[in-house]
């Protein structure tokens, strides 16, 4: 009887322990769930804060968009300025080339003019005219013809590269050279590429040597140097134009000077003779 009671109590105790253990497990589960919920609550709090911050974004975006717009405008302005500066640069570069070309032309004209008027010696003036034609124009074959007093001819007084041609004189009015010498009008062959002539009566260039309307003779160019065969340039025409006037004046002055020198020497001879002095 007593044993039965004892076993009943033990059974009850075991049942109680089982219930207690279940209670413990339940409490443990509750604690874990609680922990998870607290963690989730913190996460949600963070999300809420983050959302609150995002709520100000449109204003920031608008500000940023405005900045982008301003920067784009500035970029556009800078690009325009850059384009303008580039155009100015190109303009300066082309003007620089023009100025350099003009400088070159002026240097050529200055030197030619200076040389022509640097002497009163007739032979030297003639040599200088040939030098200008050879060195500054690039003539390979050329000749200077002057009117012969008392005749209607122009005679060759100097030439370059014309040794093989029997070219001594031209009648006024005959051919290109004769006409230039008579009318005072220049002759230029413009299409040099298709021009080829070994005939001294058909020059590339023929310019009259004129002092106002008085024609002294002509300068004729029959061939140009290999490197000049393409075309005549602006400076060539300017040099020809300058030569037409300045070479004529220089030749005329030197001729007058040599004549006056001869006359002076004759007069001096007479004076010496009359006064009984010896030279």
């Amino acid at each position, binding site marked *: 009887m007593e044993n039965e009671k004892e076993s009943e109590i033990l059974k009850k105790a075991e049942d109680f322990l089982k219930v207690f253990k279940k209670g413990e497990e339940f409490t443990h589960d509750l604690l874990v769930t609680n922990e998870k919920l607290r963690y989730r609550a913190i996460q949600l709090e963070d999300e809420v804060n983050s959302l609150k911050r995002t709520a100000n974004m449109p204003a920031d975006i608008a500000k940023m968009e405005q900045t982008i717009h301003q920067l784009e405008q500035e970029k556009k302005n800078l690009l325009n300025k850059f384009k303008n500066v580039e155009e100015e640069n190109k303009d300066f570069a082309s003007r620089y080339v023009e100025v*350099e*070309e003009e*400088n*070159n032309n002026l*240097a*050529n004209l*200055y*030197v*030619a003019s*200076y*040389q022509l008027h640097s002497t009163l010696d007739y032979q030297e003036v003639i040599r*200088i005219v040939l*030098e*200008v034609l*050879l*060195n*500054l*124009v*690039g003539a*390979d074959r050329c000749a200077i013809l002057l009117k012969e007093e008392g005749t209607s001819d122009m005679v060759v007084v100097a030439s370059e590269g014309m040794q093989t041609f029997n070219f001594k004189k031209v009648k006024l009015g005959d051919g290109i050279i004769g006409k230039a010498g008579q009318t005072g009008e220049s002759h230029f062959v413009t299409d040099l590429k298709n021009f080829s002539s070994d005939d001294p009566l058909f020059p590339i260039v023929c310019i009259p040597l004129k002092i106002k309307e008085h024609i002294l003779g002509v300068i004729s160019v029959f061939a140009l*140097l*290999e*490197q*000049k065969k393409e075309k005549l340039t602006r400076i060539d025409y300017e040099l020809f134009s300058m030569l037409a006037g300045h070479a004529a004046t220089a030749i005329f002055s030197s001729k007058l000077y040599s004549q006056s020198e001869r006359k002076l020497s004759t007069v001096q001879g007479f004076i010496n003779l009359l006064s009984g002095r010896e030279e």
Partner: protein
Amino acid sequence: MSQQYSFLVVEDSPTMRQLVTFSLKRISNAKIVEATDGVDALKKMSEEKFHLIIADINMPLMDGLKLLSIIRKDPVYASIPVIIVTTEGAEVDKDKGLKLGANAYLTKPIQTNALLSKVKELLSMEGT
């Protein structure tokens, strides 16, 4: 004060000599000496040092090519840059000049600015 450059212009034509001299005067502080042929040039070279020589080919007494070969063979003058300025425009003449040691070969009629830029290029090449 900028460095002084000495140039020797060897040319028998007074017109070309004046044109070359006139162009070189655009270089500040340039000293230009003129010679009428190769013999005259060698005499002037023995008297003073030049930074650059500009020489024609066709000249009396001694032509530009002979002068150039003498310059290149002489250790005293060999390093001086030489520009040939001539009427001889054929490729064969140009090759001849360059093979003899010319630093540049320009044909007449010259563009003064082209000559000037070649001179400047050669002077900076020499580091003078």
